[in-house]
């Protein structure tokens, strides 16, 4: 039981506490976007802390490299997945408008549709016209 083990235990405890906080936020938040806040930020930080704890406990360079790969994949994929989910939710109108303080996307989309006429030039997204309410 060295000080590395103590540090590893502290990291594991903090990571699991952050994971619990993310789950509580996922239960208690009222909206999809606020639930996405809980599902991305505390969850990813908690997972990184847990990976740091596991790496401090194992202390082998191949294992640490694999844990670094997991952390890198998580940091790369979590914002992309959250962006895709938020985009899909917005395009199909499954967003509570009363919880949004600032909505910059709806005026931007309306201005773009108005400026582009019948949308001949900006028809890159097929789901833009169908999913927006």
């Amino acid at each position: 039981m060295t000080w590395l083990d103590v540090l590893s235990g502290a990291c594991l405890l903090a990571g699991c506490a952050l994971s619990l906080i993310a789950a509580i936020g996922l239960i208690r938040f009222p909206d999809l976007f606020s639930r996405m806040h809980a599902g991305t930020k505390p969850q990813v930080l908690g997972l990184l802390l847990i990976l740091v704890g596991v790496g401090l406990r194992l202390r082998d360079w191949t294992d640490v490299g694999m844990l670094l790969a997991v952390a890198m994949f998580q940091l790369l994929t979590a914002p992309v997945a959250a962006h895709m989910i938020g985009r899909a939710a917005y395009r199909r109108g499954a967003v509570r408008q009363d919880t949004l303080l600032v909505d910059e996307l709806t005026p931007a989309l309306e201005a773009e549709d108005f400026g582009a006429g019948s949308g001949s030039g900006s028809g890159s997204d097929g789901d833009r016209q169908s999913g927006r309410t």
Partner: protein
Amino acid sequence: MTVVIWVCAAMLSLSAVLVLIRMAAGPTMLNRVVAMDVLIAVVVAGLGLEAALNRHATTLPILVVLSLVGFVGSVSVARFAAHDDKGEGS
């Protein structure tokens, strides 16, 4: 170390139960996708805890695979949910 691991396992179990409640009660499909992401992260954390408790590295490739598969699943569900207007959920 064992006490720390068991406290961590209790917290992870509680968070998994809360995430499962959200996944069952989530009003739309996209809420369930967010809950599925969190649940996969909780599973990764649990496997890491087990590796840290027993000081072995046999489950570390499973962590890599799980993180990639969870990303592909959530992105594909988001893509199909964007096109399906009359689908389940929403």
